[in-house]
């Protein structure tokens, strides 16, 4: 009944959806799988109206529709249960359920709370949640909030004629095993009220719940399998299957790291509550160590711990022989740790400050005597690094906010390298960069590691991780699954990794 035909979506520089065909029948549960960046979230956004398709048709029961915004999609029975929970936690459960649709309970400008509570109770009964609708949402557990969100979407049933399609985006990521079971049985029961589109990183769950599974890769639907024919292996191969170009990742420049030398970073049985547990790793000079896992597997939290932004609840962190007791950014920086976070705009550069000011931000002490800056030396340094990394900027006075993503990345890298950092933490260094800029980053990674810098990398794609790293540690739900040795010519395959990830 709900159908996408040849839907296309382009963003500047990215062809996010390539002629996608997608269909869901009444009461069906459809799974949607793919790697990060395969186009799943774009497809979902098109379905629930957050994005408008550039080409192709969307039809409901054969009638062509076009949604300008999610509200219009809702009016056609399409609801979304968000991965990041979208409830407003300081409101009550019933207020959340009817947020934006309170008018039905209003008479003479006053809300009839009793009527709203009764209606909310009816919705909560659909998801078998027995709580007081007047409760403040922040008091609920995550599993209960997930169900409230589902109840909120199910209010569509009363509001509109026709069938419901409900999107579940990673609904199980914060749930415990038995809660997942409960949710699944509930979803199966609700198929008499609605159809579901289910997105998850956990392959076993998708296979378990879905009637049919769409496999996406690089913006295309590469396969549609029925539950009875679905094999985890086959789907995983389809998700990642493509050739890896060794040249591209500068594999020929990969040299053996100094495994005998004293480790730069050493983690022993380190845990951070709620993020990861019992992680041990050593980073040697010249080593590129890649942390691989799905979103939320604890990769970023490990980087933040090493830099000093998170304090571990257990275990010891040793940087260059010093055991760290007080975790602050200063403790990391003073021991030569440089952190290059994912969101350059937010955490990488200070927009409004110029190139040399950004480069010396972490090392102003080296360019100042009694607090007075030696700006001439700062500019000289900036010019050297602009040449060395081929940063494209008219001059050192240019506001960094006006540089392109790749050049911002280089400024951030220059900031840490020029300060003498020899432990570099890279979080998605190539995200959002075009091919040429990516290759520059790969060159820089190789150059740094040949200089004896230890690098911990969270890569944007699996190929990148395999191509660049000496060592890979695969994480799943905050626990290390397997360690791979990746010397050139003897690298693990994508499939080896995916196998341990999901």
């Amino acid at each position, binding site marked *: 009944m709900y159908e996408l035909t040849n839907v296309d979506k382009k963003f500047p520089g990215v062809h996010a959806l390539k002629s996608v065909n997608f269909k869901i029948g009444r009461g069906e549960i459809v799974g949607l799988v793919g790697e990060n960046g395969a186009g799943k979230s774009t497809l979902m956004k098109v379905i629930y109206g957050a994005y408008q398709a550039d080409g192709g048709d969307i039809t409901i029961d054969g009638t062509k529709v076009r949604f300008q915004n999610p509200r219009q999609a809702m009016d056609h029975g399409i609801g979304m249960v968000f991965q990041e929970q979208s409830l407003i936690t300081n409101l009550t459960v019933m207020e959340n359920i009817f947020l934006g649709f309170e008018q039905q309970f209003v008479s003479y400008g006053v809300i009839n709370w009793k009527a709203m509570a009764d209606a909310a109770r009816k919705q909560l009964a659909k998801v078998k949640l027995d709580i007081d609708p007047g409760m403040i949402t922040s008091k609920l557990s995550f599993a209960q909030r997930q169900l409230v969100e589902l109840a909120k979407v199910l209010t569509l049933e009363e509001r509109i004629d026709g069938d419901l399609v409900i999107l579940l985006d990673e609904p199980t990521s914060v749930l415990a095993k038995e809660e997942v079971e409960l949710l699944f049985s509930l979803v199966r029961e609700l198929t008499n009220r609605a159809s579901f589109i289910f997105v998850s990183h956990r392959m076993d769950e998708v296979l378990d719940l879905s009637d049919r599974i769409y496999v996406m890769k690089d913006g295309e639907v590469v396969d549609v399998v029925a539950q009875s024919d679905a094999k985890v292996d086959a789907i995983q191969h389809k998700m990642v299957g493509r050739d890896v170009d060794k040249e591209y990742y500068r594999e020929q420049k990969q040299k053996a790291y100094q495994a005998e030398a004293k480790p730069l970073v050493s983690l022993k049985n380190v845990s951070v509550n709620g993020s990861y547990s019992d992680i041990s790793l050593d980073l040697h000079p010249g080593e590129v160590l890649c942390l691989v896992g799905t979103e939320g597997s604890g990769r970023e939290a490990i980087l933040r711990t090493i830099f000093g932004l998170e304090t571990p609840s257990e275990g010891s962190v040793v940087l260059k022989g010093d055991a760290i007791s007080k975790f602050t950014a200063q403790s990391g920086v003073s021991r030569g740790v440089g952190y290059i976070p994912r969101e350059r705009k*937010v955490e990488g550069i200070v927009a409004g400050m110029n190139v040399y000011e950004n480069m010396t931000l972490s090392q102003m002490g080296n360019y100042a005597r009694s*607090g007075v800056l030696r700006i001439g030396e700062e500019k000289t340094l900036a010019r050297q690094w602009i040449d060395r990394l081929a940063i494209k900027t008219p001059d050192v006075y240019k506001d960094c906010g006006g540089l392109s993503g790749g050049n911002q990345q280089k400024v951030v890298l220059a900031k840490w390298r020029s300060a003498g950092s020899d432990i570099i933490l890279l979080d998605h260094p190539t995200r959002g960069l075009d091919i040429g800029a990516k290759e520059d980053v790969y060159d820089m990674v190789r150059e740094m590691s040949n200089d004896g810098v230890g690098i911990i990398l969270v890569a944007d794609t699996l190929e990148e991780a395999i191509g660049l790293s000496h060592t890979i540690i695969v994480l799943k739900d905050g626990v290390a699954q397997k360690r791979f040795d990746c010397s050139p010519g003897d690298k693990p395959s994508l499939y080896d990794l995916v196998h341990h990830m999901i």
Partner: protein
Amino acid sequence: MSNVLTRDVLIKWAPLIVLLILVLSFTVMEPRFFSLRNFARIGISSTPALMVAIGVTFIIIMGSIDLSMEGTVSVCAVAFAFAFIWLGGTLASWAWLALPLALLVGAAIGLVNGLVHVILKIPSFMASLAMGFVGTGFALLLTGGDRIRVEDDLFRALLTERWFGFPIMCYVALLFLLIAWFIQSRTTLGRNFYAVGGGEELAHASGLNVNRVRIMGFALAGVFYAVGALLAVGRIGIAETATGSNFMFVSITSVVVGGTALWGGIGGVWNTLIGVLIVNVINNGMVVIGLPGYVQDGVLGVLVIAAVVLSTDRKSVTFVK
């Protein structure tokens, strides 16, 4: 040449253009406006406000706000006057020590301000507003509501002695403006103000001690408030609780009208100089052409809104609280 007159360039120079237009139009309406005597008058009324506004400029660049200036100015003025008279009552004696003492008092109040804000994690506007009230109350306690006269001729020379038509206090203010400029552009502290205002998370992730920068900023602002207090006492020869009155509105208006962004990271002390001059030219010009005081306040209020509207890129701001 469309790329010469971009929005950025316009915003950068808009305050100066506004100032020139104001001067021009007042001159046309009343030629007496354009005279050395009148400019000296504008200078005298501007100097204390300029010092206070420079102090709060640093705070606003950090993305915080400081509303304690009225209390701080009162306490510094009163403390200075008491110490000055107690130590001899003339600059030719040990009483000159009262000058650095006043600066120390200002720094101390600013320090407490910063500590309350950072350690107790109270929003800066609330912490400083509360400290301002404490200051005003404390000044009243010290004076018991009396006015303290400072009649030393040497000290009053700040106002009475003139070089090239302008009293010495204008040159003192100029000196401190240059010091502020030096701090802003040539010291790590000044750079840190911009880093904290432009991206606090990033400043933190680059290993800056953001809390320390904040506390230092408030202490520095306190010193400039104290300079403002000294010039205010020098101007009228009286220190009292009311010495600090009206500085909050004038200084923050000046900073904003001068083009320093309220969310931090953009602007500087030269902007503030222009802002202070705009405010004082309007005040002076309206008196010269004979408009009543309440019109001046109204015009200034409109000007503040216009300045913020001009400097805000509304496309990037989704919610305003």
